């Protein structure tokens, strides 16, 4: 990766003047034949790849209404042109959502429409050739599938659908991305994105239990493969080892402990993440999702609770029922699946959790809405619950909370810059530049309100911010898990802080039977 300059932060979002081809390049590392073949894709580019690609495009057109309708419906109104964080951070016009779609739409028009077959120049249609394929590979890996553009499109055109289709076509001709496809291989072989085997996982969780005990004096458990537990926790594997993710996992464990509910992690499905979505492959996504159903059946659990992960929550919330349902063997009185934030908020409302908010008094906290949670899922019963519930939790555990500017949060939230299969070091330039709009908004609340921490509920966001914050001269540990803040304020029954606070508030119920 060549050297690059971190973009300069301004006080508000500035729409850059176009700088053609500044992000032109060869894209991320390509998957080796062995990684391709493990997923059932061709190992390398075949001789008649043009025909295969066009056939695949036709296949997708017949299977996905979104793909067909979105390729036809764009009127080039330009509403989306200033909405993508990668465009705002790089100035490359091909990172404008419509221009990114047009990389593929131009080929669609040439092979599938009357106007493109007969008047290609008139309607901007072009033949598929190696140059076009290389351009696809580069620019469809500068899209994090965050769907911000789809909020602002008058027809709801979702560039994520186009970029998923493009990646699926590329996989079909033998050109896959190393990062995503290698990781998917590990999930199928071992059970999680990291390739962390059962033994190592068990040891890690035991270490964590010890750490919590040393910290609090309370034996909070993090159970693995416990048959007959009430709840199966599905969480991103980054929660087992990465900072600040791991503090979130400790938070979930404490919440379950206080709720008095039996729960377990599964070694068979020790991964919430589902990169099958990033590469647009329904079949791959389904096979990953099936591992979770299998784990739930094997462990005979009653409920599934989902940890802090953005794209995974999209797959879980929106797709699991389709891919791996129906979950008629689970307890129908609870949402299937239930987000850990829904669970915790529910417990807070039932007064099952006691907090000492001063545990977070050294912090001023803001919340980063993760794109997939914000624009592709819900929490709770009401639309927008995905915005309210995490904020309600934060306000219940922190005294100092402020929001970033309205046009950078909730449904208009800016992606961290690392989602959609971009979270790899060979795309570092794309990641740093794409983080600009979020960094700008964060920097503003740091200056105005003295914000010290940004909380998130997505493993990718947390890893990405840890990496890019220093590029913007902010400390990497600013980014925290929502459940880390829960953990820091939660009073565990029987702990020293518990007895102290009990003196002052004896009216609170201490039983936690559910």
């Amino acid at each position, binding site marked *: 990766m060549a050297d690059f300059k971190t973009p300069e932060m301004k006080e508000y979002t500035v729409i850059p003047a176009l700088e053609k081809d500044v992000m032109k390049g060869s894209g991320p590392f390509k998957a080796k034949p062995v990684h391709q073949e493990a997923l059932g894709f061709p190992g390398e580019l075949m001789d008649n790849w043009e025909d295969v690609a066009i056939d695949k495009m036709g296949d997708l057109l017949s299977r996905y209404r979104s793909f067909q309708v979105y390729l*036809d419906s764009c009127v080039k109104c330009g509403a989306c042109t200033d909405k993508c964080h990668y465009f705002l951070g790089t100035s490359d016009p091909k990172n404008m959502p419509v221009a990114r779609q047009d990389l593929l739409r131009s080929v669609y028009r040439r092979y599938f429409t009357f106007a493109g077959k007969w008047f290609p120049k008139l309607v901007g249609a072009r033949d598929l050739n190696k140059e076009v394929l290389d351009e696809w590979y580069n620019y469809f890996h500068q899209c994090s599938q965050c769907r911000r553009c789809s*909020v602002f499109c008058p*027809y709801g055109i979702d560039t994520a659908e186009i970029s998923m289709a493009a990646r699926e076509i590329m996989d079909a001709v033998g050109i896959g991305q190393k990062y995503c496809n290698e990781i998917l291989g590990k999930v199928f072989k071992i059970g999680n994105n990291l390739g962390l085997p059962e033994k190592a996982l068990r040891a890690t969780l035991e270490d964590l239990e010890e750490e919590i005990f040393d910290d609090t004096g309370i034996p909070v458990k993090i159970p693995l493969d416990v048959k007959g537990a009430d709840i199966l926790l599905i969480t991103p594997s980054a929660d087992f080892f990465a900072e600040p993710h791991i503090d979130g996992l400790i938070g979930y464990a404490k919440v379950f402990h206080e709720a008095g509910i039996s729960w377990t992690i599964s070694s068979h499905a020790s991964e919430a993440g589902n990169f099958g979505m990033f590469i647009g492959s329904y079949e791959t996504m389904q096979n990953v999702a099936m591992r979770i159903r299998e784990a739930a059946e094997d462990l005979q659990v009653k409920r599934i609770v989902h940890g802090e992960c953005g794209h995974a929550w999209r797959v879980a919330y929106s797709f699991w029922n389709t891919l791996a349902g129906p979950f008629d063997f689970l307890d129908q009185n609870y949402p299937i699946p239930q987000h850990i934030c829904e669970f915790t908020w529910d417990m807070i409302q039932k007064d099952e959790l006691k907090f000492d908010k001063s545990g977070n008094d050294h912090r001023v906290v803001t919340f980063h809405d993760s794109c997939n949670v914000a624009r*592709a899922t*819900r929490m709770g019963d009401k639309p927008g619950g*995905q915005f309210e519930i995490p904020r309600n939790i934060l306000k219940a555990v922190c005294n100092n909370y402020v929001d970033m500017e309205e046009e950078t949060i909730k449904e208009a939230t800016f992606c961290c810059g690392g989602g959609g299969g971009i979270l790899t070091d060979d795309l570092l330039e794309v990641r740093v530049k794409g983080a600009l709009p979020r960094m700008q908004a964060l920097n503003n609340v740091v200056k105005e309100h003295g914000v010290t921490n940004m909380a998130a509920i997505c493993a990718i966001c947390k890893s990405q911010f840890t990496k890019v914050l220093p590029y913007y001269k902010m400390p990497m540990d600013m980014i925290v898990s929502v459940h880390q803040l829960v953990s820091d304020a939660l009073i565990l029954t029987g702990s020293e802080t518990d007895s102290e606070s009990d003196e002052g508030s004896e009216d609170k119920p201490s039983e936690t039977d559910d």
Partner: protein
Amino acid sequence: MTILSGVYIFLFYAAMAILVFGLAYRIRLYARTPAPLKIVTTPAPTTQAGVVMRMTREVVLFESLFKSSKWTWIFGWLFHVSLLLAFFRHLRYAISPDFFIWPLINLEIVQSFGKYAGFGMAIGLGGLIARRLLVDRVRYISSPSDHLMLLLILSIALTGLSMSFVSPVDIVSLKMFVLGLFYFDWQPLPNSLLLISHLTLVLILAIIFPISKLLHAPGVFFSPTRNQVDNAREKRHLAPWAAKLDATRNGSGTR
């Protein structure tokens, strides 16, 4: 009956056939292509009635466009509303007075709004053309066809306005010509260069409708991010081709 009238009678039928069958083919395609996954853009309605409301706001008010770009919204909305008003006014050329909606069409308010709507179209289109030429991002994404489409519709509006305000045509013969098309009792086309230009441009528009970006009109109703209900957890959503995969699904990663 002149040869010219004959040519236009033929062109009219041809254009209408292309418009109707072309659109029907496309709508059928959209309706039959499955949407295998719930991809609604949230926050979204959790009921079907809510989705109808959302779609209505989208189609009537251009809600999403309003969120994204106020200038494009002002010009785009002005153009589309004016187009609708102009369309209502034009119905008087195609409907006989004994038809039940005639009193509605013949209302003074419908006719005068329709008459001045031409200016609304021209102003809206002018703004959209200016934006396409002046904003570097929009210029970058524009193909020749995108500019020509605006020019085509602007020409329709300007020729129409000219007939209303500059050089009126024989409306009575025009109506006889149009009704003749419906009753297969063909009448000559009034001899007016403006009218012939106006009709020619409209026929071109009708012909390219089903093969161009004008497909956004039916497309918006089929957009899964807008027309789906946010109820993925409550109700299993399954496309026919995806249902077939259920029989063979497993978590081993090999198929």
